[in-house]
């Protein structure tokens, strides 16, 4: 809304004053929210960096172990062990709130399976296969934790971006435009008042001359 498109009346001026007050308090709250989110983000960032490094190293270790198992026991033995498994890992997805923003909470329910419950015979499979399975179970555990932290970080980043955009819009667009409009209405009202005073003086002079 351009400053000169509005009707210069007292009610509009009051309305504009109210809007400016509301925008300024909204701006302050948004700024506080943005700062709070950034503090929260820095806490999550450290965790995410450590977690990412953990995923990378666990993945490398697991791939190394499965390669050894395939080389020693052969592709078929590893595959048959993999297909014989009866227990499968599950996760529990819930949500928690960070400054009014919902983020997922991922909890691993059952990732590690004891050797007797695996579904394949202990005698037929070698220790290399067991090693590889343990390494992948460890990787899954790290993945589940990384899933929670990384998603929280993504959501925090999105929220920071949104809040920053709102703060900037209020600071550089909405509040200055409202102030411009207020100034325009004030000047127009003052001008109208001056015109009225001159008109009254003129009438008074005319009336005095007629008498």
């Amino acid at each position: 809304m351009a400053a000169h498109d509005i009707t210069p009346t007292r009610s509009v001026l009051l309305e504009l004053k109210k809007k400016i007050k509301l925008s300024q308090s909204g701006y302050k709250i948004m700024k506080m929210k943005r700062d709070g989110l950034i503090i929260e983000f820095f806490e999550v960032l450290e965790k995410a960096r450590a977690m990412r490094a953990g995923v990378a190293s666990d993945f490398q270790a697991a791939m190394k172990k499965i390669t050894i198992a395939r080389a020693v026991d052969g592709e078929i033995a590893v595959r048959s062990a993999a297909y014989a498994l009866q227990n499968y890992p599950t996760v529990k997805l819930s949500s928690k709130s960070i400054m009014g923003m919902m983020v997922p909470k991922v909890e691993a329910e059952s990732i590690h399976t004891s050797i007797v419950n695996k579904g394949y015979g202990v005698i037929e499979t070698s220790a290399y296969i067991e090693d590889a399975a343990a390494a992948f179970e460890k990787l899954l555990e790290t993945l589940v934790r990384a899933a929670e932290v990384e998603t929280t970080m993504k959501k925090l980043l999105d929220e920071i971006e949104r809040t920053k955009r709102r703060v900037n819009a209020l600071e550089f667009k909405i509040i200055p435009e409202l102030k411009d409009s207020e100034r325009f209405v004030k000047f127009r009202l003052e001008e109208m008042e001056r015109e009225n005073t001159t008109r009254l003086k003129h009438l008074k002079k005319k009336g005095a001359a007629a008498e």
Partner: protein
Amino acid sequence: MEIAVIGSDEFALGFRLAGVRHVFVADKDNYQEKMQEAMSNADIGVLAVNADDLQYLSQNYKAKILDSIQPVVVPVGGGESDLREKVKKVIGVDLYKTEDE
């Protein structure tokens, strides 16, 4: 909810060994199709993907799946480039930069 994995047969085998039963074996040609299938499965809570395979997806779809909450998509292997880029864009500073870089 369960953990799922999508990628090449070699990549998925290890996860199978850890007990993951939702395995989507995909190659370059049918990767996006398999990904859509995995994303539409309501039983899946966490989806592990090979970070290098994400290049087979269109830019828009890749951004969409990486922002997904249910299932949560976790890239394995590769660097932290997506998250790193996002941090750089939003905060304005490369916070992942180490002293060696």
